[in-house]
């Protein structure tokens, strides 16, 4: 196994200095997700303003992959249009399910392409997706309260 491939510099950097961490107000949707295999947890809030993700704030415990992924996600979706954020999520999910076959588009995924190596480790893919699942769920809840897309 090639450790460096999994733990790229950029992943370790996000892990050690997570961007956007902490729970903030205001928010319209909140989600709590757990990885039952390892017990990793995240609580995540979204604040939607019109068609824009105005803020994503979170509190999490977990491994370097899950924490770095949440941090990278923050950078990707904060201030993005809701539709663009969801498109990136789809793109990232596809990358994670590629079993090491895809590289990811740096143009759109930015730092998240560093996770390409993670896709070779099925047990870790769930870690990388935990934050995104919380984001998606929080968006659904936000739109249920009338905020967001419609």
């Amino acid at each position, binding site marked *: *196994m090639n450790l460096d491939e999994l733990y790229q510099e950029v992943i370790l950097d996000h892990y050690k200095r997570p961007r956007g961490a902490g729970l903030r107000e205001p928010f319209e949707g909140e989600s709590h997700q*757990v990885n*039952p*295999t390892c017990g990793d947890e995240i609580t995540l809030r979204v604040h939607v303003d019109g068609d824009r993700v105005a803020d994503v704030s979170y509190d999490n415990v977990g491994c370097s992959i899950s924490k770095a992924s949440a941090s990278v996600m923050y950078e990707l979706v904060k201030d993005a249009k809701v539709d663009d954020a969801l498109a990136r999520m789809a793109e990232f999910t596809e990358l994670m399910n590629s079993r090491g076959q895809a590289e990811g588009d740096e143009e759109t995924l930015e730092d998240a392409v560093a996770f390409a190596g993670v896709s070779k*480790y*099925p*047990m*870790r893919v769930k870690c990388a997706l935990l934050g995104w699942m919380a984001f998606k769920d929080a968006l659904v809840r936000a739109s249920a309260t009338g905020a967001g897309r419609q």
Partner: protein
Amino acid sequence: MEAASKLDVEAIRADFPILQRKIGGRPLAYLDSAATSQKPVQVVEAMRRFTDHSNANISRSVHTLGAEATEAYEGARAKVAAFIGAPSPDEVVFTKNSTESINLVAYAFQNATIDPAADPRFKLGPGDEVVVTEMEHHANLIPWQQLCLRTGATLKWIGITDAGRLDVESVDDVITERCKVVSFVHVANLLGTVNPTSQITARAREVGALVGLDASQSVPHIPVDVTELGVDFIAFTSHKMLGPTGIGALWAKAEILDAMPPFLTGGSMIETVSMERTTFAKAPAKFEAGTPPIAEAVGFAAAVDYLDELGMENVRAHEKEYVSYMLERLETVDGLQIVGPRVPIGRGATVSFTLEDVHPHDVGQVLDAEGIAVRVGHHCAKPTCVRFGVNATTRASGYVYNTHEEIDRLVDALGQVRKVFR
């Protein structure tokens, strides 16, 4: 006549080491596959490779062996799901055998009945009805009997005609608006009857009942596509389809699995656990508490690969041709009475019979002396025996590795039986 079969039976036999065995100096003629099938080297080798190379517990480790084992196990699930045309691998729950699969569904009703928050479709009480048939294996009778005993519901059943077919005329009377679940055998293990499903399924839908199949004897022998069948669940078992013992499967629609409360509880089926309270994972994990039969899943998948390679249409054609020959030859034996359909239509290659005055135990014993393995007894279908006024039968059952010559030997040996007990 064997030419009609698309299976190369001799080539298949070479994959089954046990078929080389001699019993009392005679080559083994294994005509008991309805009880359990033999296993090809491909299955045994796949399990050995797994054990010697990748053995680990699944889903809970990040180490290489754990990842390989998880992939092997989930890969097996995907293969088994594809084999029965399941829309998603997540609709396949691995159990230890058909019996557990059926109990799992019956306990879903029992547990839902005492859970105020449960889906009302699974709640039973006095006035509600559960329907089976008179030709069930005990595995698809007693769990429902016990369920009715414990919930106050009423068990009803569809009878059998003298020709060994389901009494379809009675279906509308037996399945009423009070019925909450119909569970019936797809291919009967004593009679060999292949039951048509559409009428019962349609009637179950009409009255709003769930409907499932005991497919233990169909999945190994005929193409089964759960989407085409239009049922809610089916149960089947690896050891009857060239796979290992210790593993079976329940397929159920995702929506049904979601609605069912858990059955066995413990590790690997949870979301969060505290001393006070547990929330559960989604299906299939929800129904797979504890360490599953991992190497067995690998063997099960290898068996499915083997059958896929043969082609289930070819297996069906082989068995149809085979049972024609069985019926034709057996009818020539003096005093032999077939219990079940006497024509090779709508039936599998499993034939039960009685031999005038000679008890099946004695028949089986004399056949064994000739190297012929058949099963004798009530075949876990006592009510069927009672229906036909017999205490027990002798049953010969064929599979992909059986030859016409084995039937010829069976017929000769039955003559021998009559001599001993004349």
